[in-house]
């Protein structure tokens, strides 16, 4: 029998006992734990999630309102107009937005996120978002979130006035690795939008991607920088290498590394909503969703993503029922 790693003992006292997240240096230790410690790490992350967040799982659906043709060069994204990606530009009409919201609500989800591939919203996009929100509100009982790129104060104010409940703007990568991922805007610009959103009283959804060639230290750095922002929700994406993008030939992250990252993010942010987002299927396979939900995750995106497909929503809902994890109700998130 091996001794329990010291960092796990520290985390048990600090995070589980006191609700204080691990530091960046401590997260590096977690990410370096050998495979034999992975079950104990996941068990601890699960206990932290249950103690500080409870057993409920927040379910969300997402849809791309404006696909492709983005002027930015995020190297992981198939929607950049700068790469030779096969994804064609498309705008969704209001009827399709309402249909997407209905499909999401039918799963029992409390969140529906409208996403656009843009640097930031222009007047046309904000008008389409406003029309979409009004139409959804008339027919569907669900919280509406948006992800429309970088915002000005005036745009933040408009979204608040529209009743947008939560705003997504990911850091994408650690500050030290960001220039390897995006060159058309800076980490600081992203940070500023997150700051504006929080200051305006909207819930902040801010996460990132892992498996983009960053080091373990940079993965820990991302988690620590996210913790500093104190987002209400952290979507954790795993790179799904897209044809035609600069990261299109990168290998898919290994499942043990992915699960270690899930647990590390939970130990960095014990109180946040930690959501399984894009790439979980290709990175973790069929068993990954179960292992993640028992290793710190307490939110999922159900159904399809923006340009790729997800697991069948019913499979996720069946799994939640089997694990006796109730879906967070709409009334509890208002």
């Amino acid at each position, binding site marked *: 029998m091996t001794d329990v790693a010291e960092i796990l003992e520290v985390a048990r006292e600090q995070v589980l006992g006191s609700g204080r997240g691990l530091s960046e240096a401590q997260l590096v230790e977690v990410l370096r734990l050998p495979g034999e410690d992975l079950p104990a790490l996941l068990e601890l992350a699960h206990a932290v999630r249950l103690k500080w967040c409870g057993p409920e799982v927040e379910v969300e659906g997402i849809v791309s309102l404006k696909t492709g043709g983005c002027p930015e060069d995020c190297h992981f994204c198939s929607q950049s107009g700068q790469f030779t990606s096969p994804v064609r530009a498309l705008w969704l009409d209001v009827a*399709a937005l309402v249909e997407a919201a209905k499909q999401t609500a039918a799963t029992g989800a409390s969140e529906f996120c409208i996403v656009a591939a843009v640097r930031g919203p222009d007047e046309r996009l904000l008008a389409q978002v406003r029309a979409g929100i009004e139409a959804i509100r008339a027919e569907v009982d669900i919280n509406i979130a948006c992800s429309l790129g970088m915002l000005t104060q005036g745009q933040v104010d408009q979204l608040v006035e529209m009743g947008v409940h939560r705003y997504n703007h990911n850091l994408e990568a650690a500050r030290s690795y960001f220039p390897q991922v995006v060159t058309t805007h800076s980490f600081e610009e992203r940070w500023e939008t997150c700051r504006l959103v929080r200051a305006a009283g909207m819930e902040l959804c801010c996460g990132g991607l892992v498996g983009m060639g960053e080091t373990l230290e940079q993965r820990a750095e991302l988690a620590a920088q996210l913790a500093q922002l104190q987002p209400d929700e952290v979507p954790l994406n795993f790179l799904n290498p897209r044809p035609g993008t600069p990261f299109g030939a990168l290998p898919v992250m290994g499942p043990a590394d992915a699960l270690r990252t899930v647990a590390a993010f939970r130990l960095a942010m014990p109180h946040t909503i930690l959501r399984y987002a894009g790439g979980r299927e290709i990175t973790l396979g069929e068993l990954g969703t179960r292992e993640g939900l028992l290793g710190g995750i307490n939110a999922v995106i159900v159904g399809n993503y923006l*340009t790729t497909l997800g697991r069948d929503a019913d499979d996720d809902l069946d799994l939640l029922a089997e694990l006796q994890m109730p879906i967070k109700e709409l009334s509890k998130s208002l």
Partner: protein
Amino acid sequence: MTPWSDGAAAYCDRCGEPVCDRDHTECLAHREMEPPRYCPLCRRRMVVQVLPRRWSARCSVHGEA
């Protein structure tokens, strides 16, 4: 009958390359989690709409996939 259903695909609907040029088994595996992107009849990039529980793909010449 649509042109999609007569087995006349000349191009891989994921990578857009001719189906007879190489083995597309890997593309086929990826397609389990991706909608088609190229028209298998003419190789045009299709307009693809992904919603939470369904997707559609349309070629400007050959219609819905």
